[in-house]
């Protein structure tokens, strides 16, 4: 199979997947395809999507590929869907999530130490929204639960992996300059 033939097949598969589909999954579905060809076809497809004049984008999210609408057209889509953006996370939840994302795995007392404020409710909210998940227990007195971010976190925040977040040290300036 040539790369030109492979591209539309991959496009169709990525379109149909309701979660970001990984290269491994694609390779499993297409065992007859050489892995290098698969990668080349995916790259070519991505480049095509990057071209202007498209309503859709092909992104790498949570270690997989996903086709989604481009953010600039959200007004039109909302007109059609007749929906409003879903409720945002509170600043308390976002702060807690940020601490967990950078310091994972981390326990509730450790989160509270950094934020200087009780964070139990925020952690509960994040667990309910499946943005974080328990990652075992810390072998200290009381064996507190360790929390880490989930795959859902990557999907909801449009990240391919955690390394896409800027280094925490680089965020200092940003913090003192805004809000």
């Amino acid at each position, binding site marked *: 199979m040539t790369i030109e033939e492979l591209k539309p097949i991959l496009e169709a598969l990525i*379109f*149909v997947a*309701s979660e970001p589909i990984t290269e491994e999954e694609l390779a499993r579905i297409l065992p007859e395809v050489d892995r290098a060809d698969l990668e080349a076809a995916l790259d070519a497809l991505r480049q095509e999507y990057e071209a202007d004049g498209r309503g859709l984008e092909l992104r790498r999210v949570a270690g997989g590929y*996903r*086709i*989604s*609408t*481009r*953010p*600039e057209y*959200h007004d039109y*889509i909302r007109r059609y*869907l007749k929906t409003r*953006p*879903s409720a*945002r*996370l509170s*600043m*308390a939840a*976002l*702060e807690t*999530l*940020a*601490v967990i*994302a*950078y310091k994972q795995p981390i326990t509730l007392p450790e989160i509270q130490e*950094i*934020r*200087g*404020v*009780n964070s139990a409710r925020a952690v509960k909210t994040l667990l309910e929204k499946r943005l974080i998940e328990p990652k075992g227990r810390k072998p200290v007195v009381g064996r507190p639960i360790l929390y880490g971010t989930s795959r859902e976190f990557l999907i*909801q*925040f*449009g*990240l391919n992996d955690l390394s896409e*977040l*800027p280094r*925490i*040290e680089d*965020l*200092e300036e*940003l*913090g*003192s300059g*805004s*809000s």
Partner: protein
Amino acid sequence: MRADDWLDRLEEIPPGEPEREGEPPHRYTVKLDVFEGPLDLLLHLIKKEQVSIYDIPIARITEQYLEYLRRMQELDLTIAGEYLVMAATLIYIKSKMLLPRDPTQVPEAEDEEDPRRELVQRLLEYQKYKAAAELLWSKAEREQAIFARGRLETDDANPEVNATLFDLLCAFQRAMERLKERRELTIAREEITMAEKIAELRALLEREERVDITALFEAARSRRELVILFLAVLELVRIAVIRLVQTERFGRLLALRARASAEIVT
């Protein structure tokens, strides 16, 4: 104060503008929720006073901090314990700084002696995560504007195929045939009414999310019981207490509680 009066006042407050001293306290009610804790409040005060985080004028900031807590009290807001702990910490640092330095102390230990050091470390640390939270906020904001294709009706996502009356009849038929083969030797006639059967099914559905109707048909001990069971199922479907589904065509029949309609008729 009338409601729209109050709204007018709300609109007077320019967004993002830090509150000035001497303003009526109701303006603070709007701003109070903004702070995520004592560290956040301290950062705000430091920014407002335009002082360096590395050299906090502790007396001035402490005074402002306490002033803020007083206003919270005036407004009858419950002050979270963390705010009080921080107030105590600030006062402690302030008092330590007022004390004359021990003249016998070796001067090189001076840096380590700054009573503000630990607080500054915490503020710097917290500030980073506050920035990270803002970053996540902007990322989430972008994602809100993105739509991916919804879930398809695959067998995985939706294992239920709606069952038809025909499917119900087929299951009944099959059970009847099987029953014939069994030749039960019951002499005493079993007296079971449809009302009892319906009650039995309802009780079963109370306990279980889904009831395997095919299995019930198969378990029927007599032709009569089977017929009554069949009628009971039909009745429950009619009054919308249950919904029949199959996991595949011609597969086993399952009864599910029909959502929010169980109270319609009894």
